[in-house]
């Protein structure tokens, strides 16, 4: 190694020097990659190890007791599921519709560029600002109160950019030649979309939807003032009811509850991670199966 440094000092541009620099450089960025990847794997494993002891059938299906210091997290799980379903109901049609517009209809002009800038902006707005917006518009102005409805609509606007951009990419990936053929046998633009473009891009669109919902599942700030409550003795009975939710629950029990048993905290974190990871897995499976079965 010392000889290596000597060589670089003497002839910085000799081919040996360059090879040594390359080796050094590669190790450096390899190291950077390790820093990127290893801590997260470690964190997930750590949470798994520390939290698995808390997971039991009871934990997943019963209500919290003793404040929230014991018992299960059932209502939080159900609440998250409700929120996800309603978010999907609002964001999926709107997102796919917008993607279809951008990919199949939109002319190349100033207005279309404005739409794209708006989408980028929606993607960049801090999640807590979404919470404020949801509070101001849905909870207060539309008088929905703290409710699943207010929370999901807020979440769905936040999820829109992800769905729109992945869906648009999936639509554009369908070869233009299919559209030309369809038109040449007398199809209208919508018939072409409905019968060929949409079915062929469905896997890609679904991947985008699932990835978008995955983010919605884990977000706390947007539901802080719009849907989430700390504790409910009963499950919500209508979309106008507030609800418990996993990410909010984790936040509260790790910061606001003195004497909170650590296993339950880890257990909650584990359930949340498993939720998110399984959505990710589903998306990956859809993506690879679609690639294998593609007829173009």
């Amino acid at each position, binding site marked *: 190694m010392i000889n290596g440094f000597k060589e670089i000092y003497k002839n910085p541009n000799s081919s040996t020097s360059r090879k040594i620099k390359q080796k050094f450089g590669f190790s450096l960025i390899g190291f950077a990659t390790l820093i990127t990847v290893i801590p997260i794997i470690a964190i997930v494993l*750590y949470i798994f190890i520390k939290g698995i002891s808390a997971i039991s059938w009871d934990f997943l299906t019963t209500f919290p007791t003793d404040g929230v210091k014991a018992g299960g997290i059932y209502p939080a799980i159900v609440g998250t599921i409700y929120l996800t379903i309603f978010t999907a109901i609002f964001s999926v049609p709107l997102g796919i519709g*917008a993607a279809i517009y951008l990919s199949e209809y939109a002319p190349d002009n100033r207005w279309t560029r404005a739409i794209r800038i708006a989408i980028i902006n929606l993607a960049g707005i801090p999640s807590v600002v979404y919470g404020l917006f949801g509070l101001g518009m849905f909870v207060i102005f539309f008088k929905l109160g703290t409710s699943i409805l207010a929370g999901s609509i807020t979440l769905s606007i936040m999820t829109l950019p992800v769905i729109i951009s992945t869906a648009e990419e999936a639509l554009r990936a369908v070869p233009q030649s299919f559209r030309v053929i369809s038109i040449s046998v007398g199809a209208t633009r919508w018939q072409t979309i409905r019968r060929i473009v949409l079915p062929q891009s469905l896997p890609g669109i679904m991947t985008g939807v699932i990835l978008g919902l995955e983010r919605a599942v884990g977000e706390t700030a947007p539901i802080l003032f719009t849907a989430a409550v700390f504790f409910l003795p009963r499950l919500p009975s209508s979309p106008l009811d507030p609800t418990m939710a996993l990410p909010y629950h984790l936040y509260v029990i790790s910061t606001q509850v003195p004497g909170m048993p650590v296993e339950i905290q880890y257990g909650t974190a584990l359930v949340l991670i498993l939720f998110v990871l399984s959505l990710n897995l589903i998306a990956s499976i859809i993506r690879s199966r679609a690639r294998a079965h593609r007829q173009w």
Partner: protein
Amino acid sequence: MQMTKKWNEFFLNWLIKISGYSAIIFVILIFYFLLREGLPAIGEVSISNLFSVRWYPIEDYFGLLPLIAGSIIVTIGAALFAIPIGLCAAIFISEVSPRWARDILKPLVEVLGGIPSVVLGFIGILILAPYLRQLLDLPTGLSALAGSILLGGLAIPTIVSVAEDALDSVPRSYRDGALALGATEWQTIWRVTFPAARSGVLTAIMLGIGRAIGETMAVMMVTGNAAVLPIKLNSLFLPVRTMTATIAAEMGEVAKDSTHYHVLFLIGVLLFVISLGINIAASTTMFQQRKRAERILS
């Protein structure tokens, strides 16, 4: 039959067009509602108060500067941490690693990006902060440093994914040309591929920074929430408060339509404008670069 078909198609086309424009509608709506609840603060609180260095709402001190400074310091810290590591990792994954490694690493990084910030904040409280406290002999580990590290960790996956895509789309011929002239792969990466992907890399950085600025939960949980102006050199190691954390932490306790309530919304307006600015800057560079590339390549 033809007539109803025509009407159906017309209705559908109209629905699709509205969906397309919905993004613009929402941006306008968000801005409107933020202003609606936030502008009254300008009337209720003097400008000198807003620009003061004390944030103590209970006694009517609404100085925004410590919050803004808190956000800045944590974001800069995160950027210093995330940008070099993120870019290096992106280069490694796209240029250096063998095919099999890439097929593992790329999805892995995507999964990383999906970890909820509240989980990272949770780990931050239980592990990172005590560790920092021990390591650096601090009164509490909850500090700007902890926030920077976590934010950096959140921003890295974004930077890596986007930059990796940008590097990947540099045409093969660029690399082949450089190698044919006798450059090592290392030299090729830094002198040819990386500069060629400049705009994509810049976008990656901006998106990552955007994510860091907008982050709420993780920051709130580990930065200690002391709204002091971090002007001293060791402020990095002391508790600090960001704009996002302030809103999240205090919104639950304010009375509706109180001055405090309005000021929190005002902070929201500020955050909205900042992210708008970054995004417009990011998109203009993206569009400009694309136009330039199109001119060069045509």
